[in-house]
């Protein structure tokens, strides 16, 4: 039933979009159950798509029956299916979490705005993973950005408005660079289809300029050092569910596209020097983000800087992809890294959201003697951090092991050193936070007011996300088998 599977591709895009429309028209207060229904329907469509990719190989769907280059193609290979699945898991969790978070009587305004924005964003993210040509990709990326910026600004306070404005300006600059690159490619090849461009584009000057422009735009959207400056204020000032989707999904879509384009569209341009440049930026992200995370005095900025650091790892694939002995394992490691980071980061941000929701602040020094009511959230935070550190038994560890094995197998010592060092630094910033949460209250401190009661669902969701990382830590084999569907031959 390949046709049925292909139909689930447009559904994965259309269902959240449709839900967003209905929620917008009805108002979130009148239909609080609607986002949940839409999320479950989307998850079902994604599950069907993933099942078909796993069973029958890459799936394509042509809108209205028109073939490319005229028609719009939706295309899902193993990598896209993996991203769709990770997005569905995070999306379902965030939808479940945001319900009680937004409908508690304090956040009415935010609720009215959050649901349409988030659901359109989910549609656009799925569209990004499914888009098969550069222009549709541009539209989806714009849609992701234009929903992400208001999500940052949703509380309307001064800090978040400033962060959102900075994000908007830089993201528009990124879009401009990307579009310019796409125009150059279209002028040179006469097509926008990802694989067709790859076949037609040479290694000449215009192609290189186009690739550079597109990559710069995507690196900015993916918050890779030194283009990360907008990320930390934006992600740490947004409300918890928004922070989770921004860090776990939105920036990761940028990094995903860097890998997608360099491995599928521009492999001819991926010289060792270019690989080293991009890998070097990734390594700089890993080290810089981790060092900054060590210096923060509030919890959410720690997690936001950790995003900068974690996004660097998948880029290490680019220098390794050219080394035959390293490519296959590094490819698996990089893809699994994105999945592991998405789940763990969403769990961490939602757990941090609980702490903030309950205590009214997220200062690290104020975590000493944290109330027992928050112990489940602290546990979820700790479990998620273990994956970010790349320690067993988590998905983050299995991803790191593959990436490290790839680097060592190819004799690429510097990248191996970055991977090991990055893990140690992550342990440093993660355990610095957890030490505060384990510390006893200073004895001279007056008894603190009881923290605000957390709804049960908000307690459960981060823990379930964190535990999912451990489930994926038991075995990566099913996910990596899925990844093989439609993988570039060089990485097989």
């Amino acid at each position, binding site marked *: 039933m390949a046709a049925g599977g292909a139909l689930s591709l447009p559904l994965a895009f259309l269902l959240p979009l449709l839900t967003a429309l209905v929620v917008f028209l009805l108002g979130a207060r009148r239909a609080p159950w609607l986002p949940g229904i839409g999320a479950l329907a989307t998850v079902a469509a994604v599950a069907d798509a993933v099942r078909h990719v796993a069973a029958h190989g890459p799936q394509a769907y042509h809108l209205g029956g028109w073939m490319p280059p005229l028609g719009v193609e939706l295309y899902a290979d193993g990598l896209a299916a993996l991203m769709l699945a990770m997005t569905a898991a995070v999306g379902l969790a965030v939808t479940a979490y945001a319900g009680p978070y937004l409908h508690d009587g304090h956040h009415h305004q935010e609720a009215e705005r959050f649901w349409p924005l988030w659901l359109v964003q989910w549609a656009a993210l799925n569209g990004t993973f499914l888009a098969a040509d550069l222009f549709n990709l541009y539209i989806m990326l714009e849609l992701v950005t234009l929903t992400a910026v208001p999500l940052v600004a949703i509380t309307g306070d001064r800090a978040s408005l400033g962060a959102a404005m900075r994000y908007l300006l830089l993201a528009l600059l990124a879009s401009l660079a990307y579009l310019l690159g796409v125009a150059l490619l279209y002028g040179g090849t006469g097509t926008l289809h990802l694989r067709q461009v790859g076949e037609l584009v040479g290694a000449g000057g215009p192609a290189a300029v186009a690739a550079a422009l597109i990559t710069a735009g995507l690196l900015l959207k993916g918050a890779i050092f030194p283009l990360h400056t907008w990320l930390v204020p934006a992600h740490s000032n947004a409300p918890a569910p928004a922070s989770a989707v921004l860090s776990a999904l939105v920036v990761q879509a940028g990094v995903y596209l860097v890998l997608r384009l360099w491995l599928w569209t521009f492999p001819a341009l991926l010289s060792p020097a270019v690989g080293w440049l991009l890998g070097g930026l990734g390594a700089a992200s890993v080290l810089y983000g981790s060092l900054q995370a060590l210096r923060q005095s509030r919890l959410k900025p720690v997690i936001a800087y950790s995003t900068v650091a974690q996004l660097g790892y998948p880029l290490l694939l680019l220098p390794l992809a050219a080394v035959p002995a390293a490519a296959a394992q590094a490819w698996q490691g990089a893809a699994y890294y994105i999945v592991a980071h998405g789940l763990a980061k969403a769990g961490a941000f939602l757990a941090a959201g609980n702490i903030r929701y309950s205590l009214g602040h997220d200062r690290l020094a104020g975590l000493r003697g944290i109330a027992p009511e928050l112990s489940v959230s602290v546990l979820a935070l700790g479990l998620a951090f273990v994956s970010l550190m790349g*320690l*067993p038994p988590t998905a983050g560890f299995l991803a790191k092991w593959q990436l490290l094995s790839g680097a060592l197998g190819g004799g690429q010592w510097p990248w191996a050193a970055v991977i*090991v060092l990055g893990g140690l630094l992550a342990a440093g910033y993660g355990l610095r936070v957890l030490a505060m949460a384990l*510390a006893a209250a200073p004895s001279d401190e007056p008894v603190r007011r009881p923290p605000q009661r957390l709804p049960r669902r908000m307690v459960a969701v981060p823990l379930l996300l964190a535990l999912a990382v451990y489930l994926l830590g038991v*075995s990566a*084999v099913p996910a990596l088998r899925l990844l093989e569907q439609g993988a570039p031959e060089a990485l097989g």
Partner: protein
Amino acid sequence: MMAAAYGLLPLAALLTAVATAAIVFALGDARRRQRTFWNLFGAGTKLALVLLMAHGVLQGHTLEVAWPALPGATLRLVADPLALLFAVLSSLLWLITTVYAIAYLEGSGQRARFFGFFSLCVAATFGVALAGNPFTFFCFYELLTLATYPLVVHRGHSAALAAGRTYLGYTLGGGAALLAGTAALYVAVGEQPFTPGGMPAVAEWADRAPVAATAVLALLLGGVAVKAALFPLQGWLPAAMVAPAPVSALLHAVAVVKAGAFGVVRIIEDTYGYALAAELHVTPVLSALAAVTIVYGSVRALAQAELKRRLAFSTVSQVSFITLGVAAGSQLALIGGLAHLVHQGLMKITLFFCAGNYAETLGEHRIDALNGAGRRMPVTSAAFTVAALGMMGAPPLAGFISKWYLGIGALAQGQGWVIGVLVASTLLNAAYFLPILRRLWLLPATRDWPARAGRAEAHRGLLDPVLLTATAVLLAGLLAATPLSPLGWAARIVEQGYPGL
């Protein structure tokens, strides 16, 4: 059907400890009776399962569970005699320590957190023991680091946090070395199961690339040397003394240092093989470091005024006997080292329980405040005396047996200098243990201690574990010649697994 269920025993034992942790976390701080029930039920069940496995291994069965975690890396748990030596020790001491900890921590906060991570520690230790390949070993070894951290900082004051930082700095650093070494090993030879006498693929690789093989061996040993507290990587162990007494028992006797020493055995004997490690000139360095650690730990122990700190430095010294036994390279020395893995655990856990009893009942932490404590707490002090004499190597106690085998084993290899180390260690041990015994029994009390609450000198839950382990120290020595004693089991491991030494 029976056979399939039998084969799953290793997984069942692992999951017992994990499930205990989950239940204890879920119960929360308030439900004390239920928590105590599940703690004891979990520990008891696990011990029963491990003993069942030991029975199976005696019958000659192979108990193995494996599943692929990655293409080219399998999580594999295998019950071989060496694994069970460590697993039986840790499961037995877990049960005893749980009883002790329930009494010791009565009334203190965050008990759900404590016992939850306590169970996770033992799950990790069990995994280290049964790990059937280097990848699995690494996974559980790191899990052990993470699960012990909340216990080390349990008190939550700034000294505990500082100790926790030191602990993590050392152990995660060691973990990084072990990760790099293990990954490099996998890249070089692919996945190989632990093989008594060494993996053949590693021997071939070392033939082709001796420098790389030596570097990887150094990384692997450097990684496990941290937990084994081998000089100069022993600094975390005395620092971690701020943790409560049951945690010290766990670190020193049940889990952490043992996991390190056990790692040395797995790497030297079952990964590279002794002959290859000697050919790469690694074992002489290892035995030299072990000898230095033995003397260094003892000398430092002399200068400590606090009982737990003295015991901590004593651990630094004593654990290196295991490494020394491995590095000496004869069957007898290896038997002595492996038996010492158990003997040191029994003796050291007794000593730490006693130190905890003095602290809990009398409020004394310093050695010079223990004058006359033997009359106030005769049972605890008698247990302390047995374990201390055992540490010194007085016959017929457990410590004497291990030292005897180490000594004759080294002599058989023509390494007479090891006798010198053993003699020096015995003299130093006497120099730091005998003054404590003199204070306990011979000097008059100088302090006014709180009167006994009831007939017993301390809480039953604190006293019974001490009696049990002290008796075990005595029996392990007296019954050493029987096949199921620690020595007998160690001899069985060596005769079956390492006939070539």
